[in-house]
C-alpha cells in the first residue's frame, strides 16, 4: 500500500512533464501537419540553456528557466523560418526527412559544443525530500509539477482567450478556410512551431535539474513524445495531456510491479497495441468533413 501511494506520486510527477512534451508535439502536428523529429533535441537544448545560464553565467535559477524557454522559442522560430517555411507545399514524408536531418545537426552540434560529459544543474531547492506519511517527494519535483501545470493552463488560456490562439485553433481545424478568413497562416505556423518548441525546451529546462544534462538526453524523450501523442491521437490536445499521464503511470506501475527491465518498452508496446486496435488513438482528433 505504501508502495502504491509512492508509485502514484511518482507517476503523476512523471506524467506532468510527459504531458508538456506531448502537447508541444501534437500542437505542431495538428496545426502544421509536421512530425517534429527535433522535439527531443529542443528538450535537450532547453536543459543545456538552463545549465549555461545557471552554471556559466550565474543567472538566478528561475530567471534561467524562463530564459531557456525563450531560447527554445527562438530556436523553434528559426527552424520554422529557415526550413519549414520552404517546405510548406512538400509532402509530409519530405518534411519528416528534413526534420530528421535537423535533429542530427542539432544533437551533434550540442555534442560538439558541450562535450559528451553530462552536466549537473544546481538548483535552489534543498535536497531533502518532503515526507508525507509513506510518501516522499523532492520539493524540486513538486516545483516541476507545479510549473508544468501552470504552463499547460497558460497554454490553454492562450488558445482560448487570445487572438493568436483563435487563429491557431482555426488553422488547426482547417488551414484553407482559416486562410480565406484572413488568418495569416504563415505566421500562425511560425508561432505554433515556436510555442511547441518552447514547451519542449521548458520541459528540458525543468527536468534538466532533476536529472542530468547530456547531448543524448533527447533521444529517448523524443521517442516517448511520439508515444504520448500517438496514445492520445495525433493532433489532439486533450489526448496529449491524457497520453502523457497515461504513459507516466504505465511506466511507473509496470516498472514497479512487473519488470524494471522492460519499463521503457511498455510505452512502445502500448503504442503498437493502440495502433493495432484503435488506430486513431484514445481521443481521436475531430474528423474532417469535406
Amino acid at each position, binding site marked *: 500500500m505504501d508502495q502504491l501511494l509512492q508509485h502514484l506520486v511518482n507517476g503523476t510527477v512523471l506524467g506532468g512533464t510527459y504531458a508538456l512534451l506531448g502537447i508541444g508535439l501534437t500542437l505542431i502536428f495538428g496545426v502544421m501537419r509536421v512530425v517534429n523529429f527535433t522535439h527531443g533535441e529542443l528538450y535537450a537544448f532547453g536543459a543545456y540553456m538552463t545549465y549555461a545560464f545557471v552554471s556559466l553565467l550565474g543567472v538566478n535559477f528561475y530567471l534561467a528557466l524562463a530564459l531557456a524557454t525563450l531560447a527554445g522559442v527562438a530556436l523553434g522560430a528559426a527552424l520554422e523560418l529557415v526550413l519549414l517555411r520552404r517546405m510548406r507545399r*512538400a509532402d509530409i514524408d519530405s518534411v519528416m*526527412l528534413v526534420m530528421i*536531418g535537423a535533429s*542530427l*545537426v542539432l544533437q551533434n552540434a550540442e*555534442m560538439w559544443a558541450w562535450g559528451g560529459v553530462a552536466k549537473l544543474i544546481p538548483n535552489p531547492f534543498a535536497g531533502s525530500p518532503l515526507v508525507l506519511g509513506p510518501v516522499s517527494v523532492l520539493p524540486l519535483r513538486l516545483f516541476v509539477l507545479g510549473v508544468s501545470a501552470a504552463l499547460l493552463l497558460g497554454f490553454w488560456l492562450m488558445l482560448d482567450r487570445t487572438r493568436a490562439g483563435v487563429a491557431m485553433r482555426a488553422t488547426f481545424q482547417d488551414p484553407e478556410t482559416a486562410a480565406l478568413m484572413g488568418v495569416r497562416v504563415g505566421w500562425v505556423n511560425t508561432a505554433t512551431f515556436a510555442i511547441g518548441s518552447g514547451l519542449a525546451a521548458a520541459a528540458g529546462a525543468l527536468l534538466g535539474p532533476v536529472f542530468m544534462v547530456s547531448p543524448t538526453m533527447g533521444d529517448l524523450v523524443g521517442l516517448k513524445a511520439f508515444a504520448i501523442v500517438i496514445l492520445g491521437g495525433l493532433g489532439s490536445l486533450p489526448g496529449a495531456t491524457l497520453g502523457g499521464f497515461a504513459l507516466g503511470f504505465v511506466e511507473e506501475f509496470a516498472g514497479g510491479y512487473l519488470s524494471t527491465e522492460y519499463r521503457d518498452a511498455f510505452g512502445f508496446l502500448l503504442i*503498437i497495441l493502440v*495502433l493495432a486496435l484503435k488506430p486513431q488513438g484514445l481521443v481521436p482528433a475531430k474528423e474532417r468533413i469535406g
Partner: protein
Amino acid sequence: MSKLLPWLFVAALALLPVAFPDPYLLAVLTSAGIFIIGAISLNLLLGYTGQLSLGHVAFFGLGAYTSALAALGFDIGIGFGLRITLAPQPAWLGFIAAIVVAGGFGWLLGRLAFRVRGAYFVIITICFAQVLRMVALNWIELTQGPMALISIPPFSLWLPGQGVVALYSKAQNYWLVLAVAVVAFLVVRQVVESRIGRALVALRSNESLARSVGIRVTHYLVIAAVISAGIAGAAGSLFAHYVRIVDPDVFLFIYTVTMVIMVITGGKGTLWGPVVGGLIFGLIPDLLRGHAAPEAQWVAYGVAMILFVMFLPRGIVPALASLRPRP
C-alpha cells in the same frame, strides 16, 4: 551498350580484390556493401511504394540475430517447463533462416502498419524497431542481452572440390557481399519491372485511383514489405558473420537513418539510387576518419540530408539522367 554497362561495373568490382588487394579498401567496401544491400531493400518500400518505413533496421537486426543464433545454437525455456533447443547450424542455413524470419516479421508489420498511413505509419515502424531492441536487451537467455552474441563463426560456403570453406579472408567476404548485393539488386529489379512493381508505383502515385482499378493495395504493400524485409534480413546475416558480434544496438534508429540517407541522396524509386548513395555514404566516413571530428561528420550528414530533400528531392541518379542528352 547501356545493357552492358551495369555488368561491366559488376565485373570491375569483382576484379577489384585481384587488381588492388589492399585489405583496408576491401574491408571498407565490404561493410559499405552490407549497408548498400540494406538500402536496396529499403528503397523498395521507401522509393517504390512511397511508404516511409523508419523501422527498417528492425529487419536488418532480426536477420543478424537469427543468423547468429542459428550459427551459435541456443537453449531456452518457454515456460511450462518446455524448452527449445537448437544445435549450431551451418552459416548458409542461418542465412536462409534470417531471410525467412525477417520476411515473416515484414509480413506481420505490414499487416499491422499498412492499416494506417503517413505519420502514424512512420511512428509505428519506429516503435516496432524500438520494441525489438528492448526484447534483444532483456531476453538475456536467448540474446545475451547487452552482453551481445559473440564469437559468431564466419560465413562458410560449400565449394566444389573444396568442401565447406569458412570465409576468413577479406576478398572472400567482399565477393560474398558483392554476390548478395547483385542478387538483391536483381530481385528488386525483377519485382519493380513486373506487374507487381507497377501496382506498387500506381499506389504510390495515386492510391485512390489504384484501388478503383482493382489493385489490392494492402496485399501489394505487404508483398513489398516481405521482400524488402527478407533482403534486409540477408544483409543482417552477412553483417553478423562478417563483424562476428551482434548486440542490441543493431536496432538503433541511426542505422535506419543511414540507410534512408543513402536512398534519398542516391535517388529513391530508382534502381541505381541506393547503390550510388550507398557508395557515397558508405565510403565518406572512412575517407573523413581523422580529418573531421565525428560530430562534424554527423552534422554534415544532417545538412546533406536537408539540402538533398529541399533542393534535389529526386536524388543524384535522376538528376544525372536528366543531364544526359536524350537520343
